[in-house]
């Protein structure tokens, strides 16, 4: 029965190919990419637990194409005082009271790294040197360079951050939530034009030149 064997082999081969295609991500699909950051900054804590608005740090998202990474001075607004997690500080204070001494400063290891990176010994004092190198965060969301995406356009149209970035407020480390493929963008544009965003109508064009120029 040679012909049987042949057919069987062919079928197996096809199945294998199909399987591999199915399981493998398509080229350029970075979905789920969650690079390790130099400092273990937790969006879950800041955006989730503490409920800080995304735009408090990523203020540029409203005005420009890039959402922007907050500059060190923005972090220092709080971390000038908050040097470690709340309860740790609390314990120290109570402990200090018992022992009748000034509570000593406790700095969590990650903030230590942060202070070091921006060149401050004592958070209370201003940075010794303005030129200090800053933290080199790893970009979690990369679009190809031939795509131009403008945050402000989407924010002002009322698109929520989570629509593209997913539930960041629940992510310990930020990960690319959507595929960010062209098809994904285009379909959202079509949908929004059809049914509007958050109830109000928008014209999300699907012209090529909206993103490619």
């Amino acid at each position, binding site marked *: 029965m040679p012909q049987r064997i042949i057919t069987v082999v062919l079928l197996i081969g096809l199945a294998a190919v199909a399987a591999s295609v199915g399981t493998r991500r398509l080229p350029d699909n970075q979905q789920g990419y969650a690079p390790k950051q130099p400092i273990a900054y937790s969006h879950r804590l800041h955006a989730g637990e503490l409920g800080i608005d995304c735009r408090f740090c990523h203020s540029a998202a409203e005005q420009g194409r890039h959402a922007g990474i907050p500059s060190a001075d923005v972090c220092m607004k709080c971390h000038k005082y908050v040097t470690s997690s709340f309860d740790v500080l609390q314990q120290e204070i109570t402990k200090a009271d018992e022992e009748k001494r000034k509570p000593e400063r406790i700095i969590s290891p990650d903030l230590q790294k942060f202070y070091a990176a921006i060149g401050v010994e004592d958070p209370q004092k201003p940075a010794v040197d303005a030129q200090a190198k800053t933290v080199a965060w790893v970009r979690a969301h990369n679009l190809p360079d031939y795509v131009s995406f403008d945050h402000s356009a989407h924010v002002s149209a009322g698109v929520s951050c989570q629509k593209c970035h997913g539930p960041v407020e629940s992510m310990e480390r930020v990960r690319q939530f959507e595929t960010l493929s062209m098809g994904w963008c285009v379909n959202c544009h079509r949908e929004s034009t059809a049914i509007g965003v958050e109830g109000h109508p928008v014209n999300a064009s*699907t012209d090529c030149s909206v993103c490619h120029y």
Partner: protein
Amino acid sequence: MSHRVLFASFEHEDDLLAAATAIRQKGLRIIDAFTPYAVHGLDRAIGLKPSRLTWVCFVCGMTGALGMLWFEHWAASVSWAVNVGGKPWNSLPSDVPVAFEAAVLLAGFGSVFALFAVSRLYPGKQARNIFPGTTDDRFVLVIDETNAAFDVVRVEKFLLAFNVVETCERIQDGGRYS
């Protein structure tokens, strides 16, 4: 079910044709014939009906054409309608060439694979040529012996008139002979 058959081989297509016709006039059944090339008129001589493969071809062709027309329309004006040079969303004339090509492609492959299927031709199949040379210069008739009135000797004698070269008997079982 299996039954006996008589093989008679000739060296010339004219003898084959003559013999085939004569034998069928004698009321004997001709099962098949083996020839090195398509002998003109043999199908009529051994009584084969015209093939239905033409219909396969037609159906495939139509599927190709209509399928492609629909796809072009869907892709160009439903799935993603793009303004190309101010042309109408769905411009039928420009869809014709591709549809035609698709029709030809499907029709061609359809009928060929149909042929392979019905004639059981596939890679690795072993051909059983009782008489070698049916692909070179021999013409062989396969005559059914199941008929009670069948007498091998008389048939052989009868065939001599047609310069039969060789005869032999075999058991036919389904598609093959032993």
